[in-house]
């Protein structure tokens, strides 16, 4: 038993320090204001303080910390993307994740499970090869494997998918991991707080004041903040925040749903994704199967659940694992995904001076939490986006310099 647990035995009092302490009120001004207390916003605050010494920062969260897509995703971390720019970026995220538990001194249960993207058709195999080749080129561990290797790794999988969509092979990505998503937000929040960042929950932003194309302040439900730098790090609400500064974005909002089963003893060691069957599945450290599917095929600003989603997912998961018929789904939920035309995020500066954007994360934002935080912190501190995120700038849309990641989204869109 690790010695770290012994302290609990020798003390009657629970002497654990608080993760979060909310200051009584806002300061009249901050050097930077971060809108959104999810993983991305909190990570940006943490790295601003840690890497750049900027600590006079407020993070504003409308609800509770990590309550948006940070707490709604299926916790998968991977870097097996399609474009060299994407692969490099997500690889940097994976590397930060690998050390993050130690950095933040919180066990994030970062668990390298290995990630199979299953191919049921020859055309899917071609895409797998494309991703594998680009990944290898950039130095990321990915390879195309045949169905024998999949069966060896996951003998429970019906490789014929009930005869309906036989699996030919897969893209195997050894670094693919799962991680306790809430804890990522908590760890960054504590880290930022300990470095002097003010974090306010239940605090809504009602407006952003811009004068002469420069950000000058933020109106909130707790009062006014004078500031020259604002980062929007929200999901599902980006168009609304950008409207406050009259900034059009090409983002539309679509729901993405997920569900979880009753816990069972561990049997599924890997993360499996099937684009054809619209399924991704892994088993959490609690023993639940965590499952997701494709985006809902319509624009909607709501986190309501639908029956069709869970019916379709159930049907497909049984094609893969027929023996799960009597395993029960406990809970389903939805998040709102910011979708961009090229399936790549939007990060960096905007035409409004002092207004920075970290948005458009679609269905893949959680895995980028550390690197987006670090990159946005650098962008704010230097008023210049680092090269790593150059391909994700907002202006790429008007410049027709898109970063095509559609082929690397885990399931169909």
């Amino acid at each position, binding site marked *: *038993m*690790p010695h*770290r*647990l012994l302290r*609990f*035995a020798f003390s009657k009092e*629970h002497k*654990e320090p608080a*993760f*979060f*302490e909310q200051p009584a009120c806002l300061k009249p001004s901050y050097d930077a204001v971060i809108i959104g207390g999810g993983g991305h916003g909190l990570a940006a605050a943490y790295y601003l303080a840690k890497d750049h010494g900027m600590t006079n920062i407020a993070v504003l969260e409308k*609800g*509770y910390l*990590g309550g948006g897509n940070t*707490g709604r995703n299926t916790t998968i971390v991977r870097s097996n993307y399609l474009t060299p720019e994407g692969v490099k970026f997500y690889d940097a995220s994976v590397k930060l994740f*690998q*050390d993050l*538990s*130690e950095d933040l001194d*919180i*066990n*994030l249960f970062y*668990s*390298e499970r290995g990630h199979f993207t299953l191919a049921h*058709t020859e055309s899917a195999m071609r895409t797998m*090869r*494309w991703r594998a*080749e680009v990944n290898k*080129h950039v130095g990321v561990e990915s390879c*195309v494997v045949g169905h024998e290797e999949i069966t060896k790794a996951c003998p*429970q999988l019906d490789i014929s998918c009930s005869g*309906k*969509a036989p699996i030919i092979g897969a893209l195997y990505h050894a670094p693919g991991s799962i991680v306790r998503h809430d804890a990522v937000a*908590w760890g960054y929040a504590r880290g930022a707080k300990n470095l002097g960042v003010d974090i306010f929950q239940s605090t809504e932003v009602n407006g952003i004041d811009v004068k002469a194309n420069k950000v000058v302040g933020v109106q909130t439900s707790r009062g006014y903040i004078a500031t020259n730098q604002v980062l929007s790090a929200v999901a599902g609400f980006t168009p609304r925040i950008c409207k406050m500064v009259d900034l059009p974005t090409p983002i539309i909002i679509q729901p993405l749903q997920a569900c979880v*089963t*009753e816990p*069972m*003893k*561990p049997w599924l060691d890997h993360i499996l994704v099937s684009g054809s069957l619209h399924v991704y599945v892994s088993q959490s*450290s609690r*023993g639940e199967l965590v499952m997701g599917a494709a985006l809902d095929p319509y624009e909607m600003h709501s986190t*309501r659940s639908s*029956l069709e989603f869970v*019916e379709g*997912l*159930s*049907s497909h*998961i*049984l094609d893969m694992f*027929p*023996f799960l*018929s*009597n395993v*029960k*789904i*406990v*809970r*389903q939920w939805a998040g709102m995904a910011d979708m961009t*035309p090229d399936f790549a995020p939007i990060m960096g500066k905007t035409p409004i001076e002092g207004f920075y954007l970290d948005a458009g994360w679609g269905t893949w934002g959680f895995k980028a939490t550390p690197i987006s935080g670090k990159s946005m912190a650098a962008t704010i501190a230097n008023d210049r986006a680092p090269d790593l995120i150059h391909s994700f700038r907002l202006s790429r849309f008007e410049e027709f310099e898109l970063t095509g990641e559609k*082929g690397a989204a885990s399931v169909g869109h």
Partner: protein
Amino acid sequence: MSTRLPQQAGEWIDREQPLRFSFEGREYAAFEGDTITSALWANGEKALGRSFKYHRPRGILSFANHDINVMVTDGVDTNIRGDVVKVRDGMQLHAVNTSGGVKKDRNRYLDAISALLPVGFYYKAFHTPRQLFPFWENIVRKAAGLGIVNFSFPRITKPKLHRFCNLLVVGAGPAGMAAALAAAEAGLQVFLVDENSELGGSLGYDHAAGSESRMLLADYLHRISNQPNITVFREAYAGAYYTDHLVPVVQSSGITKVRAGSVIVASGAFEQPPVFRNNDLPGVMLGSAAQRLIRRYAIRPFEQGVVLTANTYGYRVALDLIAAGVKILAVVDLRAGGESGNLHDQVAAHGIAIHRGSCVYEAKPAADKLSVAAAVICAYDEQTNSADTRNAFEIPCDGIAMSAGWAGASGLLYQAGTKMRYDDSVQQFIPDNLPEGVFAAGKVNGVFDLQARIDDGVRAAHLALRHLGKPAQDIRAPVHTGSSPSHPYPFVPHAKGKNFVDFDEDLSLKDFSNAAQEGFNNIELMKRFTTVGMGPSQGKHSNMNAIRILAKIRGLPVDKVGTTTSRPFFHPTPIGHLAGRSFHPHRQTAMHTWHKNTGAVFTAVGAWLRPAYYQTAGRSKAENIQQEVLAVRHHAGLIDSSTLGKIEICGPDAAVFLERFYTGSFASQPAGHSRYALLLDESGVIVDDGVVARLSPELFYATTSTANAAAVFREMQRWQQIWQLDIGLVNVTGAYAAMNLAGPQAQAILSKLCPLDLCDTGFPVGAVRETQIQGMAVRIIRVAFVANLAYEIHTSASDAQPLWQAITAAGSPLGLRPFGTEAQRLLRLEMGHLIVGHDTDGLTNPYEIGAEWAIKMEKDFFIGKRSLQIIQKKALKKRLVPFMLANPVSSEMPQECNLVIAGNEIAGRITSIAVSPSCSQTIGLAFVAPELGTPGTHFRIRTDSGAMVEAVVMTIPFISAKEES
């Protein structure tokens, strides 16, 4: 030792049908109708399972489908809930999540070291050094989870029913039955859903002692069974509420998807456990659980015991227990005041001590620690929520019944979007603002008196009637009078803890204060940090208490703390039920039977099945494909291309529509001609291509690629919604079949069948003709996709097979062979044609594939034009070029999607590659950097293994006309 009571009216067991089963290796007797838990309890067994985290012994808590610590496996299925699943003869059961059985679970040591494992402990250890984490993780993962999955469990397919009703009533207790009857008698078609095998709800156990209520229940059951407008769903639960009153009703036989005109939620309330040390010991149970044991299964819950209460209801529980022969040694009431009606006097008349302002300070375990042996009782201060142990005394007992309050079963109401408020008079969240067409009645609505619940049901029925536009009365909502049915804070702190709040997750009172101290002091963060309510019983017995604790810690009213979001499912629902029959439809073309009889090996192309190639005796797949290719090159071939999307665009604006939709020019297109049609999206990216034939001035016939058939038609419809042109769009993809007759002999074959002038001037490439072949109407387009001479022949699906056979018969003497998609891929590659989606990707623009010729920039508008104007000005980044490998492949053939490497950088990608049977070279298409795009340029391809293979840029077609003969 049997605790079965004598036979009684209304019991759910059939004593004529005894059965036997085993649990943990021991044999037991039971009756038909017994659940696993009731059967074991009747045999005196109390420790029925182990808890999730600390592996503490657990028995009955709710006995109402929430006892997730009593889950068993029968060797086939797992996580079977003992409290509700009926025992069957010969069952061999074992508890899940034990190591060595319930009684001697080796993991019970975890309870002894629980001090080391406080809330959130796993966030605070095991992660340093990083290298050791996988070791600890393995241990934690193994400890987690409940049952073991049986990998040979069969796939169960249960068809789903779709049904409609005017009114869905959820819950057949007094309020639900009254509502269903009132609505049905007024003419509504009513579905009445209840999770139990018998209707009646609490009338069947709580009020069962009185003959009056027994008569009331009998009367209700009689009226319901004689009411033709009511359909009853027994052993059925309303799984969730989805938009527009869609409720999946789940039964063991499958799911009925009910779309209701309105919904009345009369789902009652979950009794909530008061929190004191060892409140989880087997023998400590909710009062309603004890009543269910007595009334439904004729079981004496324990021999001598204590009733802990904080409301009137507990006194009735005490009386029921006495009537069942239990020796009640004390009634302990947390309240110093608070009325208990005449029930108090009735209990006192039995000579039972009633301790007001007192609590059960702790339950003490028996020597084997597997059940309760005593209750420690002392004074309780409701103001400070503290126990005063100075005059504590101990009562030996084998059971404690707890009745301190309720939480509404309001999951469906929350999912429907109901705004709830905390009502102090009942200390419960009740609906404040209900969505349209959704109503609540009974306990879930904060109504507890029996007559009031019935009235509330009738009131809800009239609200539903009014909602549905039927005559209805205004009935006033009942107002709760008297003391609250729920205690506002039924918690007894104890220095040694183990006073459980969440029985699924083994969370005790202190875990919550610790979580709050660590900053997790709003309900959502607290839920996530402690995992309260995240177990299989979904917080039905813990969420309300968690909210109360947090309100107390923060000094806020309960209303201000709020609740966590209630999400589907109301009750965990099997994947097999949700999956239903799992349709995976395939589409077959009109010529499918012929293909099948001719040895076709099929491949799935989207939903379609297409012949990949035709197997002939004694030849390998590759040889067959090669023969098919050579037949097309030297004689003729016929391929079924019915899977192409086929759309008719007609009307005065048809040409205008196509001008806007595709990049090319159609206004000037003469009838009888076809043109290449390239479709872009608004960002100028290639989406699809096909052919548009003009049949008459106002009728066009467009084909799309197989993959995009549905999407292109959908886009046409979408744009038509925006443009509102005077056109009609008809998707004839399935109505028409198509086949492609290709090769040097194609003209000779066709000339045998139709009277058309087929010479190059009479029927040039791109021409379209409508004619008849053997009396069958056909549309023929001269194309050049797989060969220089080819005819695409379209006909109605019903004529397709005879037409196919006629062409085959005419062509066979001239060497015609059918060919499949494999040969087609090679043939088009030899011709140098790309396939959209195969040789293009999600960002490819027309300039990158050299399709400038297909774009009429002089048009005022077409989809993507504005973007092309910008793209035109930018330097090309890549270009699709034909290539040939410089040397014959020695070892490793490059694969599609291998990269082109220049220097050390990615300079492109192979999109198509194959060995051409016609020119015996390895040919292909590749995206390369523009500087590599000139014919004759050499570039390098990196294979899977990392080897470099040299290629040279070519011109197309790879084959010349002279090679076709």
